[in-house]
């Protein structure tokens, strides 16, 4: 199934207007953590019994799709579904942090925030107020390869969303000023503090990215960017970025839900038709990387109480055929309590409370990584855990898994493909992603078919080919507890960032 980036950055935290029906905010008794851990490890192993998901007849449900390209290059995808009086408008621009330049990291996401600050015909504040007053929800998100903006509204308000989205696509710059940029720069710096700097081991992904890719590779820097680069972003940067990337010819507009196709086309033509096509875009070439040797890193955190271990290998992006078998490797290792690595570390040896293994969970287009993350028990040795991971991978690379073991995850793929996409916005996201990265809104069908076609031999092959010694091992320990590092006798680089207080003070 199409996986949304685990951690795409949003304009803002979701707000709910409705009374919170639970009291977990206050009476947190750890139920949520424990239950979540159970859910993660409560998956499955196929027995040679009746398979209730009829494999031979199974076909992935296809959403109804009408697609056309407007004269100005805007790709439009309509997918009506009248089961609820809701419509979703979702615009994907094929631009993300990948298109940034060194020295301006975090800019694509900062720009996304600026897009909510008003445009020529729609003053600041009107966008939020209009959508919320209509009972709708809205947000935007930025990741490596794409940026999107979306509204879900009662379906009679469809034109409202098209009005709002078309004005900022066509007429952002006349309303732009320094104060708007400065305001969102500070908001984004606080987003960084909240997501990264104030979270134990929050810079884990950043240190892995920096170690995996050469500095010139745009996947080497974080989507949220650095404080210094955020400070450096100028109005001219905003103007240039908008002129280059924010045009109908670099966008996909998806409208789903309770819509009439004819009326919707008419509205889209009125609102988006007059916006001129943008310049041709040269997309950065992001080469697949390999590491000649293992890199060992140590990350200390003064607020952490227990260590963590992450091992990460450079692999392929979502447009590569090996994405599917690598994803299957992750499922074979950690999908449920009888999966190889979970069984070994959490149940048999009880060295960890949790282990996950995921291929390209950030859903990057051109290059990805395979990551194993372990939450150890307090007195467990990271060295022993690392050795057990290595022996598990060695075994998988030597002999293909049993076919039944592979069928484990395929049943889940089949059922998920039916139950997974229910909301209008969920459908829009899947269609927009397929169009943006694959030129095919129904790419999720192919992706499901590819997952179902993975063979045991594929799994052994990609384990051998990608999960090699050329990898990054990150030991994360409470500050000063360097004796907890995995294999402490091997040379390592301490990548602990400067104390968090530094950027905050510098700002005063």
């Amino acid at each position, binding site marked *: 199934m199409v996986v949304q980036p685990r951690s795409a950055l949003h304009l803002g935290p979701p707000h709910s207007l409705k009374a919170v029906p639970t009291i977990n905010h206050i009476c947190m008794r*750890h139920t949520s953590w424990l239950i979540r851990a159970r859910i993660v490890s409560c998956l499955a192993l196929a027995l040679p019994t009746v398979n209730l998901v009829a494999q031979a007849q199974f076909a992935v449900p296809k959403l109804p799709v009408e697609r056309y390209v407007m004269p100005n290059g805007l790709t439009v995808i309509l997918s009506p579904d009248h089961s609820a009086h809701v419509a979703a408008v979702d615009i994907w621009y094929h631009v993300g942090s990948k298109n940034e330049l060194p020295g301006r990291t975090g800019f694509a996401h900062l720009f996304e925030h600026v897009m909510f600050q008003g445009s020529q015909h729609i003053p600041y504040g009107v966008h939020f107020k209009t959508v919320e007053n209509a009972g709708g929800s809205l947000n935007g998100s930025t990741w490596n390869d794409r940026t999107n903006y979306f509204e879900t509204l009662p379906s009679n308000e469809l034109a409202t969303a098209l009005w709002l989205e078309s004005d900022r696509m066509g007429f952002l710059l006349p309303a732009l000023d320094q104060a708007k940029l400065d305001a969102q720069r500070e908001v984004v710096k606080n987003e960084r503090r909240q997501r990264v700097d104030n979270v134990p081991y929050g810079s884990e992904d950043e240190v892995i990215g920096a170690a995996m890719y050469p500095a010139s590779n745009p996947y080497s820097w974080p989507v949220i960017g650095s404080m210094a680069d955020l400070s450096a972003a100028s109005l001219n940067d905003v103007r240039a970025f908008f002129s280059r990337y924010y045009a109908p010819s670099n966008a996909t507009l998806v409208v789903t839900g309770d819509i009439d196709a004819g009326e919707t086309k008419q509205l889209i033509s009125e609102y988006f038709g007059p916006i001129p096509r943008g310049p041709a875009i040269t997309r950065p070439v992001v080469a697949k990387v390999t590491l000649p040797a293992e890199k060992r890193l140590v990350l200390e955190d003064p607020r952490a109480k227990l260590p963590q271990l992450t091992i990460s290998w450079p692999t392929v992006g979502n447009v590569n055929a090996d994405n599917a078998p690598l994803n299957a490797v992750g499922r074979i290792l950690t999908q449920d309590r009888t999966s190889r690595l979970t069984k070994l570390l959490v149940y048999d040896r009880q060295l960890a409370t949790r282990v996950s293994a995921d291929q390209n969970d950030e859903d990057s287009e051109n290059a990805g990584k395979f990551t194993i993350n372990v939450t150890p028990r307090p007195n467990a040795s990271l060295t022993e855990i690392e050795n057990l991971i290595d022996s598990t991978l060695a075994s998988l690379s030597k002999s293909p898994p049993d076919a039944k073991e592979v069928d484990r995850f395929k049943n889940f793929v089949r059922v998920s493909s039916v139950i997974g996409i229910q909301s209008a916005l969920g459908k829009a996201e899947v269609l927009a992603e397929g169009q943006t990265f694959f030129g095919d809104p129904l790419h999720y069908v192919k992706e499901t078919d590819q997952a179902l076609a993975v063979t045991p031999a594929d799994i052994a092959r990609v384990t051998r080919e990608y999960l090699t010694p050329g990898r990054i091992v990150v030991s994360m320990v409470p500050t000063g507890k360097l004796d907890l590092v995995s294999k402490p006798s091997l040379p390592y680089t301490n990548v602990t960032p400067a104390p968090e207080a530094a950027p905050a003070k510098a700002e005063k």
Partner: protein
Amino acid sequence: MRPRLDSVALALISLAVLGPVTLAAQAPIDRAKAPVVPAAKPLTFPEAQSRKLPNGIPVIVLEDHKSPVVSVVAIVDVPTRLEPAGKTGISAVLGSMLTEGTTSMTADQLSNAFADLGNRVLPTGFYTITPNVDRSIALMADQLMHPSFPDEALTRVKANQVVALTRAKENPYYLASRAFANVVYGQDHPYARAATEAEVKSLTRADIAAYYEKYYRPPNVTFVVGGDITPEQAVAKLSHAFGSWTAGEKATLAIAAPKGVSSETIYIVDRPSSPQSVFYVGMLGPPRDASDFFATDLANTTLGGAFTSRVNLNLREDKHYTYGANSFFSYRRAPEPSTFIIETAVSTPKTDSSLVQIAKELADLRGARPVTPGELDFARGSATKGFPLEFETISERAGAIAGLIRQGLPLDYYNTVVQHYRAVTQSEEQQAAVQHMDPSKMAIVIVGDRKVIEPGIRAANIAPVVVIDENGNPVK
């Protein structure tokens, strides 16, 4: 690399299939004006059909055959506040132990059975395709009615729970919520209790089994079934699986009212080297059945329930101290009180400035800047027009009904909710704000780098300052 279709080729294909999109020539639209949109379609609320199993368990069915999917949820209404003193955390450990095997299946065998289906089944429910419903109900019933509580699993579950407790203390929001509960409810009050490492370690298999036997019984259970299934089918399937479950004790709560806050006080919890300070500001709130519930909800929207609410516009959009600030009422089942909270995380150097602004917003709402007609209109609009979104999917509809049951509200609650919101007047919203967002009864908990933030907080002179740990104990 996979082959990728060229976008020009796609355009040609779509033109060939659809024919050129021809549209009538027209005058350009006036972009400065919001479009005139058609009237909203009539609101439709989930039609909940009530049934009962022969052993008395209520079954609420939301029939909907548009997709071949079914959701089944067992609400086991045993609030954690029932946990006996000294055994706090037993609910979480029990919840986990229910997945560790039954008298006829080991946990690994259950796991295998889920894989045969392609969907997981928790003791309290599942979401799957229609053909998998019977087997999923059987696996759910086995876990809920016949758990085996193996000793070796209990040892592991307890150890993992202790790790979860330790890790939670790394999280500033957890520290803020713990400190807030201790100062607002009182350290010994059941609302403020949280499992300790010692308590979790002391739990025995006999404790778990006794708690289970006492409360996991039909009088405390309600099923909510949604999707591609009729009420008759739901009752037949659930009766088959759960019919032999025998009655037990109805869980009843008899909890003294928490003490609340007698006068506004600021509590600092030290978390050294934090680049942000996390705020929990709030007080005890009205019960869910209060006559001014709707006015209170609208008042919350004005102060902090939406993006364009006052605290977010001030702290984020105007001052840029934060990525977001919001407020909410968290309700328990009436007659228990709710809790009102304003929550935000601000950059460390702006901690005292943020404190001043939050205090100002609370003071302004009851004084200099009362609720305006525009704010009432906005809050009403966002409260009443968004119902199609809230009930869009089967999961959401079932979740909404489960929320009504948990809060003891009638199943036809939503039929009148719009008229209740519309009936709220400006003075009623204002009165609710004055009564339920009263700074003189609020605790202000700030989790951050004490040595950096304490001088400014004291200098702001908003309220007395006390330094505590997350358990509510004073710190020098």
